[in-house]
């Protein structure tokens, strides 16, 4: 399961970021922030060839010593980043994909809320609980 889940606006600022409370939150801010470099690089490379059928899932952005960072970008250029523990080898690519899909669905619900202003931080409880199901349970 994830140790950090982040939603990043088109303009590259965080709409939502949540990490397991046991570890420093700022560390994940840095991890996710630097992963944007890779996201940008990936979409700039893909964008030319397959602008239309671009896959939303960006795959492993980069592995660090402790974590693996996965990325996903919606068509409106909102990015999702999931950080998982490197030691967690049981997670397969497919599961990461399905996590992103769930996240995307829930994010769509947030966007459908007429009281939500696109670009504002996400404060939806429904979204929060979906994220909770995907996070490593703190014990």
């Amino acid at each position, binding site marked *: 399961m994830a140790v950090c889940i982040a939603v990043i606006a088109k303009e*590259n*600022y965080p709409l939502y970021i949540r990490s397991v409370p046991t570890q420093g939150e700022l560390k994940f*801010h840095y991890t996710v922030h630097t992963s944007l470099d890779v996201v940008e690089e990936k979409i700039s490379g893909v964008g030319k060839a397959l602008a239309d059928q671009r896959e939303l899932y960006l795959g492993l952005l980069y592995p660090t010593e402790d974590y693996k960072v996965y990325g996903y970008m919606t068509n409106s250029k909102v990015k999702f980043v999931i950080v998982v523990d490197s030691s967690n080898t049981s997670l397969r690519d497919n599961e990461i994909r399905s996590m992103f899909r769930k996240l995307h669905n829930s994010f769509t619900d947030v966007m459908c809320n007429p009281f939500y202003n696109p670009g504002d931080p996400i404060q939806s409880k429904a979204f929060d609980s979906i994220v909770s199901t995907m996070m490593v349970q703190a014990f």
Partner: protein
Amino acid sequence: MSVPDYMQCAEDHQTVVVVVQPMGIVPEEQFFRIYKRIASVSQVSIRDSQRVLFIRFRHHYPPENNEWGDFQTHRKVVGLISVTSCNTAKEWPQTSDRFHGQKEVFGSTLYDSRLLVFGLQGEVAEQQRTDVAFYPSYDDCPDVEKRVEDFVESIFIVLESKRLDRATDKSGDKIQMLCVPFEKKDFVGLDTDSRHYKKRCQGRMRKHVGDLCLQAGMLQDALVHYHMAVELLRSVNDFLWLGAALEGLCSASVIFHYPGGTAGKSGARKPSVSSAADAGKRHRPGAQEVLIDPGALTSSGISADTSAEIGRAKNCLSQEDIIEKYKEAISYYGKYKSAGVIELEACIKAVRVLAIQKRAMEASEFLQNAVYINLGQLSEEEKIQRYSVLSELYELIGFQRKSAFFKRVAAMQCVAPTIPEPGWKACYKLLLETLPGYSLSLDPKDFSKGTHRGWAAVQLRLLHELVYASRRMGNPGLSVRHLSFLLQTMLDFLSDQEKKEVTQSLENYTSKCPGGMEVISLPDGLKLPPVPFTKLPILNAFHSLCIYTVCCFSLMCVCVCVADFQWVQGDVCEVQLMVYNPMPFELRVENMGLLTSGVDFESLPAALSLPAESGLYPVTLVGVPRTAGNITINGYHTSVFGVSSDCLLEGLVGVKSSGCMVEVVPSLPRLQLCTSLPRSAHLSSEDLSTSVSLQLFNGETQQLTITLENIGTETLNTLELTSKTLSTKEKLFGEFLTWDLQDALSHLPLKSGQSVSIPVNISAKLDFSGQESLLNDLNDDGISVTGLPVSSPLRQVLKPRTENKPVGSDASKNEFNHVKTLEAVLTFKYSGGAGQVEGYYRELSLGVRVDVEPSVFFTRVSTLPATSTRQCHLLLDVFNSTEHELTLSAKNNQDLVLHASECQRYTHTHTHSHRLLLHWRDVTPSVQLIEVCRLSDGIT
């Protein structure tokens, strides 16, 4: 080998290292001047050949790196130039000895050396020696470059001879086993006659020859040798050297593909003869060239003919292959812990190549690998260098955020707790360089428009670090500036607790060094623009900002919108701002005043204290224009937490105007108004300087004395008075307000400090007769009126009303208490002084409000026939509705005294002609007949 050269790039493989060192005491400045001149000779074209020799000059080179010279010859120090000062001939022998001593350090690898002696003149200096050059002084050495060129040529000759020597070694001879320092002990007791060992020696030697060829400018030969070395070494699993051979292949290919170099701007090379020639051949992709079969050559030793007809382009790796081979080489290096530096450098070289190929993703993988290469115990300085280089490389491939991240790590390393003398300056400088990576600029203007950009959490952290670093650097001014910036731009992202902490530390800093509006220039040229606190407090949208002029302190205040009013020279003017405090605590704003341009303006600053998270709060800023003309209000200045800010309206969010222009007219006199009656609340609809209100009984007249005092400095020359009764439904009889201005005008011109009084009579004569009860009573009695024409129009109108009588009589009880209100405005227009010449005047207005109470009512009117048929008696039932006793007098009749709430019949004899008239105008004229006197006043 423990010291990596982070600046290395692939084309460095074709260079030779020359160390330039000072010997004895050489002033640093002088040494580096000479060093620069020497280093300018970085490439030398060799006479009689098309080849170029590239030189890397180093003023510092760790001897342990030199020990890896056999592994990769570009690590070998082949030349030494010593720079020394020598003032007397006596010192010369000693100097010469020291030079020999210095040569020993790199002894085994040196091809040649030179000594540059400065300051020595005379006999000794005249000796002609190739290895020593004498110069009278550091300023007088015109042929240093020439000397160095000669020296390089001599190195080339040695290099070329070595190359030829090695390349033509016969397979029959025993080939020397080249090895790296850590391998030496492994070879002890190894069977040197085995085929395996021989192959290893051959492979390594091939690789070495390849290196030499590359250095000597024979790129194609180098490629061939490398290819052969790869085959040989691969067959014997000599991984370290296989890696080196592969890397050599890559380097040679990179040099071929990218004659401009991969080091970026700093290391850009001059286009050389050989690479230009290469480039010419590069454009023949279809050339029929034969690929040499490296395998065919291996068995026959190192005697292969590597002449020019051997394939060029085909031996050279394609751009794709270069990266593949780099990866392979790095994976081989990775097998050896002691080759960490080699691996790291290879990674860096590969990244530089990838950066040129614009393959950022792969480059980032190489860098990621480089991050994890363990070089054992690194000194703090090396760590800083390592992180900085990683940062630079990330920047090179366009990963701004990663680059910023590593730069920040490097900055933190500068001040690591283990360092005895933390380098706060270096830390600060590095932190500043991370700003673009976090999309942060230090100009608050970039943040004033639109939404916040970038990642607030990391930006906040960086700003905190900047504040801390600048404080530790001993530059409180900078800390204040950064902290102000943090507070101004990150306010929305701070928690209440953080807001408190930040402001507290800001106040601490400003107590030592108040913040101002000047631009702070850093030594490296960066300019920190001032940070005005436009959010402390926040000015509400400017369109709601209303500007008042106060011509007469608080007494006369004319509120007009922006452009339709004037200010008067020499008078106090006001601007009202609506502000609110976003902080969770009380905000003390000091020295708040207006920023203006155009006219000399004396701002009178105000200090205010805004409660925590106040709502809109009006603030009045005052000042005095000293000259006439147009004044533009550009903004306001404040001092909050010890930081003074100039907030311009044009920079404010939500404020559309960029200031407003007000005309300042020449000075005018100023009047203060006092009345004999107490002041009251303002009338509802009008903007008035002041108001009075009084109560009058119907028919009563009272005098109001208005005193006008000239409190200005100018002399009053003209005065006009007009009145305006505010629209009322009441029918008013006679003049409501009357006055006589003659007396006052005779006092003009009125000098400063003088005053005039104007009596104004207020008389209230209203019709209270419209009461239905009264008319109904009349109606009932109508029968008794004789000779009344039935066709009277009023009667017809009145008749239907009688049907509603019960309702009407109910209401009638209250109607005696009805108070009617009259309102009027007295307007004084006056002028004088310089302003009068230009046609300006001032207005002063006084609101008058009168509550009129009814005095007497005629409750019943009836007639009785009199003795004469031409006459009748008019009977009026008079009711005193006041609480006072009053006397009623009529013409040629006796007075009638009415007590409070008393009703009496009053008889009057009229002629018939009168009677009719009286009847239909009934009570209204009667009011005029009656002098109402309040008995309490003692007047009858």
